[in-house]
């Protein structure tokens, strides 16, 4: 367990040293969201209706942007070999790396999302649900992404393949997250949707490490 934490800190430090790694996804998230009012016009009711969907779709694409670096660099420079040979199981390595990925993508998205919500005139009742849905949903995006990144590891033009593989798997998260937010906006309880998101989170944390670790072992053979 200490080894996993050690690896988490190491990954985090690496990403903090690469300034662009940290800035690029969140800058993409903000800019892409800003483009929507420019494209559809500033009509408040229209923006309010689009807000939750726009924030979630761009958040989803922002996490995708950072995925290819999750294992690719370690694979190319031989570090992944050494991680596979470290005393901690590869499954824990996956969890540590997913956690570091979330801290540098999902967490900043959660911090910035309310500001964008205000700008897009998101319903006042929906803000708490927006944050809850992001808190439950973005870790799942990181987990599914880690699985995709592990499967496409070593493939030529893996980036495009990764997007094609991962985006369909993101659909359920997107549906339940945005329906939670619109339910809250209409004065209904977002609870069932959030509970479904929580079930994805729990299912992901149980299954994804094994699937991703198996894919990594296969890539290293």
């Amino acid at each position, binding site marked *: 367990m*200490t*080894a996993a934490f*050690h*690896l988490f800190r*190491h990954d985090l*430090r*690496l990403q903090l*040293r*690469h300034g662009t790694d940290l800035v690029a996804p969140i800058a993409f998230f903000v800019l892409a969201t800003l483009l929507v009012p420019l494209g559809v016009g500033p009509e408040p009711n229209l923006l309010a209706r689009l807000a939750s969907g726009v924030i979630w779709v761009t958040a989803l694409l922002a996490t995708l942007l950072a995925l290819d670096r999750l294992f690719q660099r*370690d694979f*190319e*420079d*031989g*570090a992944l*070999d*050494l*991680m*596979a*040979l*470290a*005393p*901690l*199981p590869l499954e824990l390595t996956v969890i540590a790396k997913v956690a570091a990925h979330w801290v540098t993508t999902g967490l900043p998205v959660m911090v910035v999302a309310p500001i964008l919500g205000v700008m897009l005139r998101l319903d006042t009742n929906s803000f708490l649900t927006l944050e809850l849905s992001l808190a439950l949903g973005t870790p799942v995006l990181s987990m599914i992404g880690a699985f995709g990144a592990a499967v496409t590891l070593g493939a030529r033009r893996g980036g495009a393949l990764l997007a094609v593989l991962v985006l369909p798997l993101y659909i359920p998260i997107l549906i339940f997250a945005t329906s939670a937010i619109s339910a809250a906006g209409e004065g209904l309880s977002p609870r069932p949707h959030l509970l479904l998101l929580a079930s994805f989170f729990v299912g992901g944390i149980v299954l994804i490490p094994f699937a991703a670790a198996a894919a990594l072992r296969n890539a*290293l*053979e």
Partner: protein
Amino acid sequence: MTTMPPNRFAGVDLACRRSERLVFTGLDFAVEAGGALLLTGPNGSGKSSLLRVMAGLIKPYIGRLEHSGASLADDPAHHRELVAYLGHQDAIKPMLTVAESVRFWAGIRGHEHLAEAALAAMDLTALRDLAGRFLSSGQRRRAALARVIASGAPIWLLDEPTVGLDTRSIAGLEASLAGHRASGGMVIAATHAPIALPGATTLDLAAFDVRFADEADAA
């Protein structure tokens, strides 16, 4: 950590398949505590593949690896604690300093206290605060070797350890290898360059190459 150093590391009737090609078959090897094994053979004869099999990164197609007579497949986690692997790549991060890299890899095995001595052994003390991206290829190789030394593992698997090293660093490496063996460790190295491994057994992989066997069958 309960790392009981094995007194014998051996492979029995090993075969390795890479995609559709059998790289070697019927290969046996054994190394005793304090011993060394030198892998030789032409390019593509499977030296690197054999080292990856020994490390546990590739499952042998046929055959098995043993520690002191116990099959390794029964306890892969134990095996991971026993081996330190140096591949073709150095795994030195451009944004981390030499000392940070070596400390990280030592720390993940719970041996962070070994890092300083390892840096000194590879003559890296003066470079310790230099970021990886400023290192020459020989310096990167030395940092990777320091990582192996700091692993605290009894079995060192070295793939071309001397690539890019100057004569002085090679002498330093030879001293470290001798010290490791004197304390009961094992060294298995694949190399084309001459390296002093007194009393090492030499294993020529050309002898197990299937292509030669095919020719023999044809004749």
